[in-house]
């Protein structure tokens, strides 16, 4: 005898809870999608529209891109951001991974929890507030580390924020503000490495260095790539640090140091919103391309 199974029948018999659950899931996702469209997709599309039109709304092709690229501040700003990204990403990867590995090794000791908390605190300060903290740190007259600045040969705020020092200063500020959160994330990822893998490595005679280099770091690869993608996108948009430093130094640090500042200047100083949009679109394209490169090269979406 053959038993026939109606697929329709099985659907009908699906437990009620599941359908309620999927409706709730859809509702949550829908809310996010609506917000994403309203505050992410529509403004981006609006910026793209602006980038290819003039103030009267007429199509200008690449005109705005050419105008902004020909501005005398564009190439220096591009250079500043590139140098900053290089310093920031290298220091982020090396120090965050290094510190997370150290913390993980100290896990059995109580200090790890305290340290994780301490590392995280600066990240809890809002971006602008952290920069303000740094403005005090960098002014030898009021800084709690003025003796250290003195040893380095700096006696005044003007000497500390000399243009040549800015990439290092911005890297320091960004690291101090953003790295703590990543240390906690990478630490969490380290905890996810199965203990039998670690034990096998130990039995095979791997020391701490070899375990880190040959077992832990390769298994953290995706997390590191994720961190680099987000840090790249954030770093390319460098704005708050130079803008506040520029205000605090009454212009010495330059109000058009980064591409984002230049975009802001185009919009609100030179009354050229379309040029500003062109720079924003360029930043978007650069960040998306970099993300695509990292994702494809690292096999980010490959299933384990």
């Amino acid at each position: 005898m053959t038993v026939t199974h109606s697929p329709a029948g099985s659907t009908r018999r699906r437990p009620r809870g599941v359908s309620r659950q999927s409706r709730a899931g859809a509702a949550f996702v829908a809310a996010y999608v609506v917000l994403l469209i309203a505050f992410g997709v529509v403004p981006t599309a609006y910026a793209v529209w602006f980038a290819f039109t003039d103030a009267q709304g007429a199509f200008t092709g690449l005109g705005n891109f050419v105008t902004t690229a020909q501005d005398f501040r564009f190439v220096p700003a591009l250079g500043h951001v590139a140098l900053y990204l290089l310093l920031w990403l290298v220091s982020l990867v090396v120090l965050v991974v290094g510190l997370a590995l150290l913390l993980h090794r100290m896990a059995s000791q109580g200090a790890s929890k305290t340290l994780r908390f301490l590392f995280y605190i600066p990240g809890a300060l809002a971006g602008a507030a952290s920069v303000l903290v740094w403005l005090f740190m960098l002014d030898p007259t009021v800084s709690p580390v003025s003796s250290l600045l003195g040893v380095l040969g700096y006696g005044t705020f003007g000497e500390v924020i000399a243009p040549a020092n800015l990439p290092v200063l911005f890297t320091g500020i960004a690291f101090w503000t953003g790295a703590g959160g990543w240390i906690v994330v990478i630490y969490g990822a380290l905890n996810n490495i199965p203990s039998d893998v670690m034990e096998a490595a130990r039995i095979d005679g791997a020391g701490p260095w070899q375990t880190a280099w040959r077992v832990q770091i390769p298994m953290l690869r995706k997390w590191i790539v994720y961190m680099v993608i987000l840090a790249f996108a954030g770093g390319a948009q460098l704005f708050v640090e130079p803008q506040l430093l520029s205000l605090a130094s009454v212009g010495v640090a330059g109000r058009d140091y980064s591409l984002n500042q230049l975009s802001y200047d185009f919009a609100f100083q030179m009354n050229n919103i379309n040029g500003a949009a062109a720079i924003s679109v360029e930043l978007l394209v650069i960040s998306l391309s970099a993300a695509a490169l990292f994702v494809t090269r690292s096999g980010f979406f490959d299933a384990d």
Partner: protein
Amino acid sequence: MATRKPFTDRGKLFPRRRSALLAACVATGILTAVSACGGSGTATTTKDGFAQAPQKDGAFTVWVDSTRLAAAKLYQKQHPDVEMKIVTYDGNANGSNYLQTKVQLFNRTGKGWPDVVFSSQNNEATWAVDADFVAPLNKGLVPESTLSGFAKGANDVCTVDGTLYCLRNDLSQAVLWYNAPLMKKWGYKLPTTWEEYQKLGEKVAARHPGYLVGDAGDSYTPEVYLWASKCGANDITGPKSVSVNTTSANCTRMAELMDVLIKKKSMSISGVFSTDFGKNKADKVLMMPGPAWYGGALFKGTFKTPAKQIAAAPMPQWSGETSPSTGNVGGGTWLLSKHSEHLKAATDFLTWVTTDSAYQGDMSPGFPAYAPAAETWLRQQNASGYYAGDISVLKDASTQVWPQWGSGQFSQEAIWAATVKPGMTQGKTIVSLLPAWQDSIVKYAKSNGYKVSQ
């Protein structure tokens, strides 16, 4: 055989059409909403030289910085029946561009402009006219009898193509501030020429190390020194044209003088508002060329210099010249929005705040631009007992501002700060930095759409 489309296919077709229709509706909706936001869409009347928005009852809005808050509050107290909304903002201090940023946004949304706004920057009219924000004042809004009361040249920074677009709050002519008891004690004579000033600076460096005859560390240093030397770095020759020459003899003579005194350390490069100056140098000021507002805002306010010490003398002049020239170091402006729906109330406030002695004469921290109020102000200052002598030289200085230095759309202060100041910090001479300064001004001017002659 039937070739008719199966019904099921047609069924699929309809939802697709429906979604296309829906998308079109959403797009139209967004576009309508955007275009509706773009313009006010209401009828305007042309009067007083511009298209005025329909007038309404209700409160007018005034934006002031913290210093001018007292003015707005006093007006409210004196006119309790006037509905006004006072908003404090940074007054565009340090060239923050807050007002400009907001106006760009209000222009896009078609609403939100303040009716009257104070700005501490002199170059607001140059962009605000382009941005279609400010109302012309000398076409009927403010009577000529009021406008003629302002000091000669006071409202030049507010005039674009012959039309007046703002009223000056205070003048910022520079004078030579000095510590009278100290000068007397050390037996120094007040320098009347820049040559004597330099000699005195060198003498102070040798005899009283640590004491200062000036400061060259602020972003407005070129306004204090190079403008006073008639250096043609910033001659705005038309609405969109500028002449720039920073390496003429007039520029180098002052740059050389400053280089000598900076090297001898009797001229600081810290900046009078820096923490370094406040902590280490504020009580070491023997002389300090600077604007009218230095007396109240800097010596009395920031440095807390005790009474009966600070006095004012005329700016030195170069040997062979007949009278001193001074620069113009700030001085705020009041602007009126052409979008205002409360023009009468807003104009009344604007006129009061710039001319009435109750504020300008008695309370203003700076030298009023309105001449009758300035008389009252000087009387009050001299009677206050703070200064070591009569500071009426400020009145003479108000007519000595060299007219060939203008307020363009690009910020001279920002250019000096970003180009020359870092070099000075590294120990480079100002003379050696003059070509770089020129190059930077030219680039910024061109970038802002100016035709540049060099």
